[in-house]
């Protein structure tokens, strides 16, 4: 009797409900990944075709020092992007979360998501106009006599960083906002009441309590930054290739699909490994809390 009643409340078999997502995942992620794995273990034919005989040569080549530099730069830029986003997003998220009026809150969140209305490609082009030698910033600086010759703001790592931070910032603001919004505001008063200066409160209460939001934001920003392609392609110079561009050029320019696949697969493995590590650490801290 009870069993029957419970079933009527649970809206049928849960397996059925996740089927669409499951099918989508298999065809859009599982299958392509499998193809990439197969390609990465094959050889390149002279005119760019794929020779399906097994080989590890692509992976060995991907570990060469030349490419190591690109990975290193990608990791560095992604890490810098994540850190900058975190520093910039926290005050913004905190400010929005503290608003009392629901209307203002929603309006500010709307502003945060407003950039999504335009394609990232177009927004990145806009940065070219802002940063280039004859661009918005340089022209003003020269006009006001602050500098005499224009600065090199475009086509370097700095420009990539600007583009990445700009593009990823909302993905840091939103999860941080979610945790800060849910946080009991009287905890901040309690902290001040017990003798914490605002800075101490930030590190002893605010940061620990927003840990889950920080992790979510870090993952949401770091992973896309690591594989970024548009920002480094448009804003970066010849000497600032990132791993995303390396993969793209293997497929579209050099036509070495097996090598491109190997790098792409390595990137996926690294990202997955990072995800597992972060999951483990957050899980452990959650377990400690229950202990």
């Amino acid at each position, binding site marked *: 009797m009870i069993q029957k009643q419970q079933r009527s409340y649970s809206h049928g078999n849960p397996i059925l409900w996740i089927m669409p997502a499951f099918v989508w995942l298999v065809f859009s992620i599982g299958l392509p990944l499998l193809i990439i794995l197969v390609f990465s273990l094959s050889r390149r034919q002279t005119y760019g075709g794929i020779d399906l005989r097994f080989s590890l040569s692509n992976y060995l080549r991907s570990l060469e020092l030349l490419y190591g530099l690109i990975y290193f730069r990608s990791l560095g830029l992604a890490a810098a992007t994540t850190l900058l986003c975190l520093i910039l997003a926290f005050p913004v998220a905190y400010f929005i979360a503290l608003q009392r009026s629901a209307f203002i809150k929603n309006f500010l969140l709307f502003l945060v998501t407003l950039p999504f209305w335009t394609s990232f490609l177009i927004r990145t082009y806009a940065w070219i106009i802002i940063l280039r030698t004859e661009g918005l910033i340089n022209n003003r600086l020269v006009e006001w006599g602050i500098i005499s010759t224009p600065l090199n703001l475009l086509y370097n790592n700095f420009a990539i960083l600007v583009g990445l931070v700009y593009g990823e910032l909302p993905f840091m603001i939103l999860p941080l906002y979610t945790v800060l919004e849910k946080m009991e505001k009287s905890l901040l*008063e309690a902290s*001040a*009441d*017990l003798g*914490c200066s605002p800075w*101490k409160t930030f590190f002893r209460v605010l940061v620990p*309590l927003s*840990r889950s939001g920080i992790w979510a934001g870090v993952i949401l920003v770091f992973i896309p930054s690591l594989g970024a392609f548009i920002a480094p392609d448009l804003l970066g110079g010849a000497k600032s290739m990132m791993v995303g561009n390396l993969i793209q050029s293997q497929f579209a320019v050099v036509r070495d699909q097996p090598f491109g696949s190997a790098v792409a697969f390595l990137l996926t493995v690294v990202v997955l490994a990072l995800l597992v590590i972060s999951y483990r650490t957050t899980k452990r801290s959650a377990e400690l*809390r229950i202990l």
Partner: protein
Amino acid sequence: MSAVLEFRGLRKLFGKQVVLEDINLSVCAGEFLTFLGPSGSGKTTLLRLVGGFEPPDEGHIFLQGEEISHLPPHKRRVNTVFQNYALFPHLNVFQNIAFGLQNVGLDKTEIESRVKSVLEMVQLIGYELRFPGQLSGGQQQRVALVRALVMQPAVLLLDEPLGALDQKLRKQMQSELKALQRKVGLTFVFVTHDQEEALSLSDRIVVLNQGRLEQVGSPQEIYDRPKSRFVADFMGMQNIFPLASLQENGEIYRCWTQGGQEIHVPKANHPTSEVHFFGIHPAKIRLKRTPPGNHFDNILKGIIRQGLYLGSTHTWAVEAGNCETWMVAQSLYDSSDEGFSLQDEVYLCWDGNNGVLFS
């Protein structure tokens, strides 16, 4: 007694709305003072002004003789027990209590011994490693209390700390709280809207109404001698009648209610101020079946219209005079009282001292 906390001419606005006005008050060292009032009376705001969470718009707050009106919360020697406890969910009981002590810069062993001593005080030894989410409401309440107590503040502020507890636990925590205050000898400033709680805990009660001090006095004064209709009403005085006229007659006032009843009240308790109302608590009136002679200063004849059985008392609504309803609470454990039923003709009697006149 010396004043540990003092308000002078305090005024607070939220936008254009006046939340507190003309607050002048001294809190004595070691006393249990209660701000009592309905919601919106400004009692919590007044407490938050002391804690430093809101700045006053006018006036001054002094703590141990020093002005603290605009000092940030972390620089004030007061601590707060918050209404929702505000325990840090990411810290266990020990860490929660040690939180403030770490800011003072005490060494580890000192912190441990202090935390242990307050945990002993509230019988929570053994709960050090639990997190707030694993505690019952009463336990959380105790942790919140000792987290503030352990700081040995000049004044401990309590913002309706028992509000979230159920009736039984609430009564128990009330007596624990009172015992604790006597033991540690700290000054407690307590906020509540529950007049019974205020009466049972306080050395002194401050009744607030629409941001103003309505009356300040001991629980007995507030209960027995309210100075205004508001206080009388708020303290559960169910019999309040507007006066039609009033005459001085030697040692007593002769007053007439608008229903035409003549009432005598001794002059001694009501010096000069203007009075408009007569009031008396239901429990201070006795019901008699026959005229009781000259034992009482006031005797009214009436008819019982309604009865409400409340366990230890029986409350009767008695119609007397011109359609005036008097509430009488009859103790069911007093053998001298008789049993009554609806439509009985009865006599209401009370000593003149039990009635009060107020504005």
